C-alpha cells in the first residue's frame, strides 16, 4: 500500500500520537522517507508539537481567586458573615442552645427564681445556693418519705400474700390491733409528733383499702379495720 501526500498529511496527527495501525505505519513511513515535501512537513510539525509540550502552566495572579469570589458572592466580610450565620443553623448548634437554656431554666427553677416577678437579688449566687440547697433537701425528704411508705405497703402486701398461701398461720401473722385505736398506732401510747400521727393515719387507710379488696381477710383484721 502506498499513500499520497494528502493521505499522509491527513493522518499526520495519528502518526504523532501513535494511533496508526502497523500496516498504516509502514505505508506512512515508506511515503515520508521518499517524499521531498512530506519529510520536512513531518519534521516541522513534530518540532512544533514538542515545543507546544514545553509550554508550562501559567500561574494566575493570587488576587484572581478573591476577585472571582467577590464577583460571585460579594466582599470578604459579607461572605464571612454569611458563613457565620449559616453555622448557626447547624443542628449541633441548635441542640447546644436548647441544652444550655434547659439547664439554666432548671437551675433558676430549683433556686426559686420567679420568672413572673424577677428580682436581681434572686440571681445572687448566695441566694441561688441557699434556695437550691433548700429545694434539694426538700426533694430528698419527700423522696425518703415516699420510699418509706412504699416499704410499709410492700410489707403489708407480702404478709397478706403469705396468709393467703398458708391459712393455718393466719392468726399468728396478722397484726393484732386494739379495737379502740386506729391501725398503725402503738398500744397505749400517743404519737410523739403530728408527723407520726399522719403517717399512722396513712398506713391505716392503706390497710382499710387492702382489706376491702381482699375479702379472704374479712374475718380477721379486715372487719375490724373497716369498722
Amino acid at each position: 500500500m502506498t499513500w499520497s501526500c494528502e493521505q499522509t498529511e491527513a493522518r499526520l496527527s495519528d502518526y504523532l500520537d501513535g494511533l496508526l495501525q502497523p500496516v498504516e505505519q509502514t505505508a506512512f513511513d515508506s511515503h515520508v522517507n521518499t517524499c521531498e515535501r512530506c519529510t520536512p512537513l513531518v519534521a516541522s510539525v513534530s518540532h512544533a508539537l514538542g515545543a507546544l509540550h514545553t509550554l508550562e502552566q501559567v500561574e494566575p495572579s493570587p488576587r484572581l481567586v478573591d476577585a472571582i469570589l467577590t464577583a460571585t458572592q460579594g466582599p470578604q466580610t459579607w461572605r464571612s458573615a454569611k458563613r457565620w450565620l449559616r453555622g448557626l443553623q447547624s443542628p449541633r448548634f441548635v441542640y447546644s442552645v436548647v441544652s444550655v437554656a434547659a439547664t439554666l431554666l432548671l437551675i433558676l427553677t430549683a433556686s426559686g427564681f420567679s420568672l413572673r416577678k424577677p428580682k436581681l437579688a434572686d440571681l445572687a449566687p448566695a441566694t441561688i445556693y441557699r434556695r437550691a440547697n433548700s429545694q434539694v433537701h426538700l426533694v430528698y425528704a419527700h423522696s425518703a418519705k415516699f420510699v418509706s411508705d412504699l416499704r410499709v405497703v410492700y410489707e403489708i402486701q407480702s404478709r397478706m400474700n403469705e396468709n393467703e398461701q398458708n391459712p393455718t398461720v393466719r392468726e399468728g401473722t396478722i397484726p393484732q390491733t386494739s379495737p379502740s385505736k386506729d391501725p398503725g398506732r402503738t398500744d397505749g401510747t400517743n404519737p410523739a409528733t403530728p408527723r407520726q400521727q399522719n403517717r399512722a393515719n396513712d398506713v391505716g387507710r392503706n390497710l382499710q383499702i387492702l382489706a376491702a379488696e381482699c375479702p379472704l381477710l374479712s374475718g380477721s383484721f379486715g372487719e375490724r379495720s373497716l369498722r
Partner: protein
Amino acid sequence: MEQDAQLVQQCLQGEGSAWEELVRRHTRRVFNICYRFTGNRAESEDLSQDVFLRIYRTLGSYRSAHGGFATWMTSVTRNLLIDHYRRTKRDRVTDSLEDKMPVVENKESAGRRPDEQALLGELGGQVQSALTRLSPELREAVILRDLQQLEYGEIQTILAVPEGTVKSRINRGRIELARVLQQMGVRPS
C-alpha cells in the same frame, strides 16, 4: 470528578464554602485556557472572572450525568472565549507589546539552568505568539488537545462537533502552527 459533583450539589444547597473550593480547584485551569487562547494576562484574568460568574449563575443547569464538571466548565470557557473573540475582532488591529512579551513560566522553572530557562522562555513566547495567530477553531482544538491533554471524546463534547471534525481540526491546527513557527524563524534543529 465525583468530588466536583458533590461540591456542585453543596453549592446548589447554598454552601458558600463549596463554591469557594470549586473556584480554588479550577481557577488555574480556566485561566490557562484563557491565557493560551488570548495570549494576554490581564485579559485572561477578566475572562476567567466572567467564566466563573457565568458558571455561578448557570450552576443549576449542570447535570453530572452529561459529563464531568471540568468538561462542562471548559465548554463554558470555550463559548465565552469565542464570544469574546467575535466581540473584539474589529478592535484587534495589531498585537500589543504585552502580547509579544514572553510570560515567565512558573512550573518546574526552579530546577533549570538560566540559559535553559531563557531558551525555553523565548521558545514559549514564540509558540504562544504562533498560537494566537491560528484561527479560533484550530487554536481551541490544539489548546484542548496538546495543552490541556484532553481526550478526543471530551473535546468532541466541549466543541459540540463530530469526532472526525475534532481530529481534522487538531491535525490542521498542528500543521498550521508548524507553518507559523517556520515563518517566525523557529525551525527544527
